[in-house]
């Protein structure tokens, strides 16, 4: 399939948004403006947007600890995402999820999972809904090379296979799980694991190439939507930053040569070159886009800055749909949490 000029521009915009958003978030962690940590997708943008751009509105996706930017790939505005990372009231989850547990239902993001592997069956369940209710939607689960060793992936692939669900399992193989090189803990090839579960498995060696990723995911999405069942796609890619921002490991588990090689194949630079060489874009137009995206990120930070922190009582909302539960918390307990020293009579 070919993408229009506007679509190609939108692809580059989304990849840039992820890059710039994460670069800013990285700084904010280091300055203490974002509490906790964030896991960036810098270096993996082609893989993210290659996948999300193959989905339609209404399609579902789930992610892991490194997926706070994936809603951007699906078209989400930046402000509520940034406000979520800072724990503000205007955050897309009211500040209750943060970078690790962010969901954006408006764009079909059913949520990240801080628990590695744990959101794979969630997306599978969304695919099941589509099937049972006869809806034309598909679901995609993002997970890492590390997550590929969690058993629940295979339970999910088997269920999706036997029920012929409209499902894509997308492994973001950035070759490391924290400090652990994938090849030291992974027996066999991840994409090859699909065959034993009766579903197609595809390995994309050059995950820095948007087109390669997008083509593969688009075919899988089309198959799924046509009722032809699930696909496992393994995308080989690389994260530029440390596992998480602020983390400092004493052991350097990735060598300089390897890093340099991957940096030389930057997905955004490559895509820009392709746009100019093959798709009639001008450097000026793309420079303007860069600037535009930087402005968008500034605005997102401003949006976050302008938002207050949530009221303390928000900590007691949203556990259940009904509120009677909160009333069953004991008197002492509620008093204690309001830091009152005396119990109400």
């Amino acid at each position, binding site marked *: 399939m070919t993408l229009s000029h506007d679509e190609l521009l939108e692809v580059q915009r989304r990849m840039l948004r992820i890059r710039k958003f994460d670069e800013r978030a990285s700084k904010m962690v280091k300055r203490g403006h974002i509490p906790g940590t964030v896991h960036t997708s810098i270096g993996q943008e082609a893989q993210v947007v290659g996948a999300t751009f193959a989905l339609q509105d209404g399609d*579902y996706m*789930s992610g892991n600890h490194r997926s706070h930017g994936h809603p951007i790939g699906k078209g989400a505005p930046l402000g509520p995402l940034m406000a979520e990372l800072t724990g503000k009231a205007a*955050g*897309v*989850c*009211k*500040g*209750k*999820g943060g970078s690790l*547990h*962010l*969901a*954006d*239902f408006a764009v079909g993001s*059913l*949520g990240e*999972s801080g*628990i590695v592997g*744990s*959101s*794979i*069956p*969630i*997306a*599978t*369940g*969304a*695919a*099941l*809904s*589509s*099937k*049972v*209710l006869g*809806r034309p939607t598909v*679901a995609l689960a993002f997970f890492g090379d590390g997550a590929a060793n969690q*058993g*629940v992936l295979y*339970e*999910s692939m*088997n*269920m999706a296979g*036997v*029920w012929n669900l409209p499902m894509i399992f997308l492994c973001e193989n950035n070759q490391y799980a924290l400090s652990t090189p994938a090849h030291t803990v992974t027996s066999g090839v991840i994409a090859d694991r699909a065959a034993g579960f009766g579903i197609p498995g595809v390995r994309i060696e050059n995950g820095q190439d948007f087109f390669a990723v997008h083509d593969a995911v688009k075919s899988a999405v089309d198959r799924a939507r046509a009722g032809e069942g699930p696909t496992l796609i393994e995308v080989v890619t690389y994260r530029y930053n440390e596992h998480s921002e602020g983390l400092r490991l004493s052991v350097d588990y990735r060598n300089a040569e390897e890093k340099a090689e991957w940096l030389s194949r930057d997905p955004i630079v490559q895509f820009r070159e392709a746009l100019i060489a093959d798709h009639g874009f001008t450097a000026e137009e793309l420079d303007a886009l860069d600037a535009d995206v930087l402005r968008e990120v500034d605005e997102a930070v401003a949006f976050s800055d302008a938002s207050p922190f949530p009221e303390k009582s928000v900590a007691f*909302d*949203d*556990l*259940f*749909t*009904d509120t*009677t*539960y909160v009333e*069953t918390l*004991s*008197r*002492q307990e509620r008093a204690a949490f309001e830091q009152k020293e005396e119990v109400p009579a």
Partner: protein
Amino acid sequence: MSVMSYLGAIGAAQREAMDADERVIIIGEDVEANVYGTTGGSGKSRASEGDFTQKYGRNRIRNTPISEEGIVGAAAGAAMTGLRPIVDLSYSSFLYMAMDQLVNQVAKNRYMFGGQASMPVVFRSAMFYGLNTGAHHSDRPYPMFMNVPGLKIVAPASPSDAKGLLRSAVDSDDPVLIFEACLLWGSKEDVSEEEFWTPLGVARTVQEGTDVTVVAISSSVPEALAAARTLAEEEGVSVEVIDPRTLVPLDKEAILKSVAKTGRLVIAEPAHRTCGAAAEISAMVAEEVFDSLKAPIARITAPDMQIPFSPALEKQMYPDRVKIAAAIRRTVGVAQRA
């Protein structure tokens, strides 16, 4: 009204819920063949034919692989996207397989996502204790789920409650774990054939009394009632028996009111002792109506031991009418000595 067994009442509630709402599906191992007796025809006991499958089709009656973690996660994802699944996990001991999904996804998603998700899903499982099925098939793990905020927890002790609470659970937009008790499967009573909903969070006073309160859970309810009868007849002790029915949210007011009246509390439950529901109820009472208490609170529970297979060993592990009666006597007696 008609006489229904506990198991038949569950089947009836499932049928009503399937009829009432197309989004309700049943998902679990061997549900198609009605192996556990709640997806069959008659609704009164183990059914003679597996007719849920015939009636609702394989799209809504989903026979699954043995993949509890995957099933529970898929049901959660489905609940977040428009279905209202009833997951049949058969034995309660299998819940551990799906613990991550239950605790990290089912219980937390709505909260973490600031209310974007809702999670209308029911997980049914049966506590199979007392039948010489050994340590892997005799667990009563509801207390550990009580320590997980975000799960509603139900333990019906009668056919009517089995039916009415299941309907409320299916209609709840929050996740509900129902712990059934196979020891009660055969128990029978008149149950309305009309639709009815027993609210979650409201205890049932099974029998009124003035001398001592017995809070009994699940299969301990009939045992507590039997103990109460013996004590009334033989010793003139008036026992109030309360069945909380839902453990989360817990009807604290009903328990506190009763203890404020009687001044004495015995709690009976089939779970292990340490950190059980009885511990929670005891602690809650000791906090809230301490001044009303005339005697130590007694817990009658399974001991902190695993369940042995041999029939020579297993019977002694659970609360029964003899132990409950002894605890009541002790509690009343201590007060008399005071």
